[in-house]
């Protein structure tokens, strides 16, 4: 049975709900179910409910008048059951070109791990990853599920610029850079998709709760997809399951 979260005020604009559990795909479902239940409870309120690994933050505008009454309602809320709440999960295929022209640290990482580049790519494309939340940079997905054998520290000297779509590894995390940026991550490939577009109807390609799998593609296909994306000619490969 899911535990009850600790509820506290977060300055004047926030209410924080923290669960005492480790993050996992199962516990993410608890968070997202609680989020859905709160959004239903506080319908019509001007509040954003944000999840991270093990917490929810309710963000209010400074002028909000319901923060204290909402706080009381949250304290009385039943977090033990989430009846009638279904979290739909998508499995999204994310194409990545693992050519060394993009994977600036592929050869280094393969030699450090004493495996071939092919074996390293196989380890990265095998798992199903979970998108826990978007943060750090606009559109940057925090992913869980990296094969432990691929974990590796950040570069000692960060690069001043890596390209949009760069796929990297840092400690036990893997991620995709939505835009060109300075970065200390070990870069192993590039994704031709646009993860973030502020003027699109849906600014982010991915959202909390999504599951993704990386698909290895060649340089030619990378170029084809990259050209097709801005005109909307690339169709994202997804499958949906409820669970």
């Amino acid at each position, binding site marked *: 049975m899911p535990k009850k979260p600790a509820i506290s005020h977060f300055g004047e604009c926030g209410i924080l709900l923290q669960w005492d559990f480790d993050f996992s795909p199962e516990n993410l479902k608890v968070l997202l179910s609680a989020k859905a239940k709160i959004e239903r409870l506080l319908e019509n309120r001007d509040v954003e409910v944000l999840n991270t690994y093990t*917490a929810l933050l309710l963000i209010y505008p400074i002028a909000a008048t319901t923060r204290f009454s909402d706080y009381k309602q949250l304290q009385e809320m039943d977090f033990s059951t989430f009846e009638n709440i279904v979290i739909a999960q998508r499995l999204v295929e994310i194409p990545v070109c693992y050519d060394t022209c993009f994977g600036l640290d592929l050869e280094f990482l393969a030699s450090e791990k004493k495996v071939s580049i092919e074996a390293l790519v196989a380890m990265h494309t095998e798992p199903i990853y979970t998108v826990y939340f978007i943060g750090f940079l606009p559109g940057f997905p925090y992913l869980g599920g990296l094969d432990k054998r691929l974990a590796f520290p950040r570069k000692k000297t960060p690069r001043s610029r890596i390209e949009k779509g760069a796929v990297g590894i840092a400690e036990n995390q893997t991620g995709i850079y939505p835009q060109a940026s300075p970065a200390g991550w070990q870069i192993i490939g590039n994704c031709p998709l646009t993860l973030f577009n502020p003027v699109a109807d849906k600014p982010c390609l991915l959202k909390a709760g999504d599951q993704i799998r990386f698909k290895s593609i060649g340089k030619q296909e990378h170029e084809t997809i990259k050209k097709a994306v801005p005109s909307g000619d690339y169709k994202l490969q997804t499958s949906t399951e409820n669970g």
Partner: protein
Amino acid sequence: MADITLISPGFYTSIQDRGRRGTAKYGVPQAGAMDAFSAAKANLLLNNDPNAALLEITFSGPKIRFNTAMSICISGAQFNVKCNDRQLKNDKAYIINAGDQVDFGTLLTGFRAYLAFSGGIESPVVLGSRSQYEGITTHFRLKKGENLNIMGSGKVLNESSARVQFSNSKILDNKIEVFAGAEYHLLNTVQKQQLLKTEYTLLASSNRMAIQFKEKIENKLYGITTAATLPGTVQLTPQGELIVLMRDGQVTGGYPRILQLSEMGINAIAQQVPGKSIIFEMLIK
């Protein structure tokens, strides 16, 4: 449509409104006026929506040519402002005529001034806000020679209306109101005392994303699992540095969140000049 031209933009001048709501789930910071109190005041004195887009002027001011008539109001930091040869005061609405030039001279008190225009600035709305932010809007600050459209041309206020006398003591005060942060309980007694007794000197590297200080506190705490942050969240790095996240700050972070500034605390720290010092004052003990 009325319009103005920036003859020179000043040190850092940008378009801001109240910022973005509901975009943390995309990893997009709120942005918006650093001192939201003064920005709303400038707008309200012009009978604008308090959320209307205006100019945030940091440290050194711009020179602006008004190509059409409109009314304006300045709030927040006090500069030596002149319209042609006429001295302009803060917190008062003025009618500016076509061809007039407004110069922001020396900075006298505070750090960020707000210049509001009747009707507000007309610029692209991205994710529900006109606030400029790198990667979201096309530009993140204004450039020399830039033209800006202003929405309310015809409606100019009657200048003879009284100037409102505001007490700016709260905004210009170096006592910054805080609450305990989500990880405050991880600090030991010595750290808690140090935190509330030390005068912290603002570093010159402070900006719209974060304010940092010269002084450190002893610290043995490491990072936390990445967690949500808001404007006004004070993080403690493993080196003992404090980072006050401001309006353009990241929506998540991996350092313990030891304090949370009150809304007036955020407004007040936005008016502190780098090199000067502040002290944190716990609101609820």
